[in-house]
């Protein structure tokens, strides 16, 4: 199962964090810093899977943003790798602009993520179906 998902920029600042396994609120910054340090220090030739403590990390870099997913041992790393890409494609479809958009509309990103991953497992991977509730919400709030 997926333990957490983080979006971090190159300076190590967290842009998005979602935990699917209970981690103490006090420990989160420490965990994030540690994980990010591990991923940021990787060179180009190294592969995208890192073994961290007793679980694994899958990370992918998109320009200045790193997406890091912590997964348990039994999960298929390549499949999560694809999932991350899928997630980015969905975000791309909705926010057709840049990452700045992503960061400024954090709540919407959460909604998208909730549609895709629930409770540590994949729910939906079809872009249209993921974006449907969000588009409906937008329509509802438009007439203001």
């Amino acid at each position, binding site marked *: 199962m997926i333990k957490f998902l983080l979006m971090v920029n190159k300076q190590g600042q967290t842009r998005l964090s979602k935990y699917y396994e209970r981690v103490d609120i006090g420990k*989160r910054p420490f965990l994030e810093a540690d994980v990010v340090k591990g991923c940021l220090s990787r060179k180009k030739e190294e592969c995208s*899977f890192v073994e961290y403590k007793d679980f694994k990390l899958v990370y992918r870099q998109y320009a200045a943003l790193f997406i890091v997913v912590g997964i348990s041992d039994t999960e*298929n790393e390549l499949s999560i790798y694809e999932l991350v890409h899928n997630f980015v494609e969905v975000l791309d479809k909705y926010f057709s602009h840049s990452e700045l958009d992503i960061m400024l509309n954090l*709540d919407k990103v959460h909604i998208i993520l909730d549609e895709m991953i*629930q*409770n540590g497992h994949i729910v939906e991977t079809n872009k249209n179906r993921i974006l449907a509730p969000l588009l409906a919400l937008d329509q509802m709030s438009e007439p*203001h």
Partner: protein
Amino acid sequence: MSPSVRLQEMIRVIRGARTQGEERGVIQRECAAIRAQFRQADNGTRSHNLAKLLYVHMLGYPAHFGQMECVRLIASPRYNEKRVGYLGAMMLLDEKQDASLLITNSIKNDLSHSSQYVQSLALCTLGCMGSAEMCRDLAPEIDRLLRASNSYIKKKAALCAVHIVRKVPELGELFTPAAQSLLSEKNHGVLHGAVVLITELCERNPDTLEQFRKVVPELVQIMKGLVMSGYSPEHNVAGISDPFLQVRILRLLRILGRNNDTASDAMNDLLAQVATNTDSSKTAGSAVLYETVLTVMDIKSESGLRVLAVNILGRFLLNNDRNIRYISMTSLQKIVQTDHNAVQRHRGTIVDCLKDQDASVKRCPPELRAHTTSGIFNAAERYAPSQRWHIDTILHVLTTAGGDVRDETVPNLIQLITTATELHCYTVHKLYRALITDISVQSLVQVACWCIGEYGDLLLRGECEETEPVQVAEDDVLDALEMVLQSHMSSPATRGFALTATMKLSTRITHNVDRIRSIVSIYGSCIDVELQQRAVEYNALFKKYDHMRAAVLERMPVIDKSSPGHTNGESAGGTMKEMEPTKLTQEVVLPQEPANKVCDLLDLLGGSAEPLQPSPALSTTPLGPVSSTAGGDLLDLLGGLDVTPVPPSVIVYEKNGVTLKLQTDRQTDTGMTVTLTATNSTDGDITSITLQAAVPKSVQLQMKAPSGDIIPAHGLGQVTQTVLLNNPNKVSLKMRVRVCYTSQGSVCQDTVQIDSFPSPAW
């Protein structure tokens, strides 16, 4: 105005803060404003404030004052407020907070809301942070939703059910029938959720597992549909139809087919089909193939299928994508370690893989290389068709990736080389050639130096059946070794190897002994303490103990890996190396000490048939008596508590009136505690008695402080010392003890070997 605008402003301001302090200031102001607004309990800005608070929370600042606000927002009838409220609940609340109880009722109501989006919010939140109580309360609701007609709801309900089953395993039976019926859905989201739910149920409860074996045919059908279907725009990822679902189903099949022949049979065709039809040019396809391989190796599949799986892994090894190479290497390692039998049949394939691996190791990312090289060595060890191939492979790996070889492989390699007796000549020639080309790879240089030291005479003889003869002069060899000694690229350990090798050559060459003597004496004043110590000892060997030199430096016997005696093949130098930890407690070597030490060690080794590896001592003996610091390397054994309830003890040494007894205090299957007791039946006191011990390499030895070092005469007293032995690899325990004492003015020293230990007292 949508809720995000205010949030955006705040985010902009926070990002604009140039220092940590500035940021904290901004956030504190915002939090204060938010708190004030929460207390006002009105207005449409509540959701904005909570959203801002969540952002602040994500950055790591305390946000617990927002919990009640979450509860209030969840109860609100407006969707966007509910949305933020639930999000807040998922992020800020967990079952330990009291506020979470308050939302139970809201969730319950929302689960039966008319809008599916509201229902989904509730499901999501329940699945995220529902406590056991809440789960028990709401489980029937979830079950109802599982059977509802809306696929959007069904998929979320399935995953919520997974959470419930984790929290309250007994409720698993409630969901079993629903889960089964969900498999006939067409919607992939629902299918996915159903497969996850079934996986969870099967993992929790073996009876359910039995039950679900019946659905294997259905799963096989679904997979076939996915694999053989044409292009489906809805789920297509890089040409594969819904790889996520395929991977999930394969994993479930793995769980169902494990240890069960009928289920495994039903899957065989399907797995073969997936393996052959999936396009592995993109990651998505590789992910599916990887899962297939894992499944094949785990269930009771037929051998043809296993060959196919190993072949797939072999193909992965040559892939350009480093991720795929990493995956295949880790899987191959797992397979080699666990499923030895299956892999034995595919020896040929694996050997081929290994040959290719050498090429891919170079392209491999550095941190995997150590992993890979040990994997290669392991596999080469098991599957080598001939010793010569084995040695060739090892040399090849050392030359291409020697920098990434783990340290413990060096002794293993040396041991391997010693066993291949007929290949000594060939090996030393090859290594020599490798050495003169490149001295930067430490492990290679170490192995080469050791071999040259040991088999230098073969090298100098020039003829060799297996390779073209090359005339190597003594000067050339010494030049090479000196180069290693002087090079700044050589690590201290490597220099140690080189110095020892130079010393060993002094008995194997005829003309340049003086040169060796001068090299050795130069290093007697080297800054590196380790090197200096060795050099001084070798010097002493030349001067005072020249008569012993030949005997000491003669060829090492073949080291049998399993016997106590598996060392890194070093002679005096090697034992010194392992004493590093204790040496730090010694002052810089005094001239009179080395003679003593050399005497000690040479005696031990000269008298031994199998060189033993003394493990680093954690001796707490005082630094005072010189002999005990020298003995710090070989471990002191003095029994701790001997005495009254006389447990069975064995007399291991008896001479000159000194008796040494061994008794086992405690024995577990990975270690034991023994006590050595020394008594004296002569007329004079025995003074400065020290006991030293050595054990097989994989055993760890810890010696407690001895009770003293003087044994009164006439059996009036004794000296005891306790030794703790930790034997995690459960090798046969043997121990060699050297007892050193002064009796009636003369120093005596003896060594005994203990092969069997008495059974413990209790």
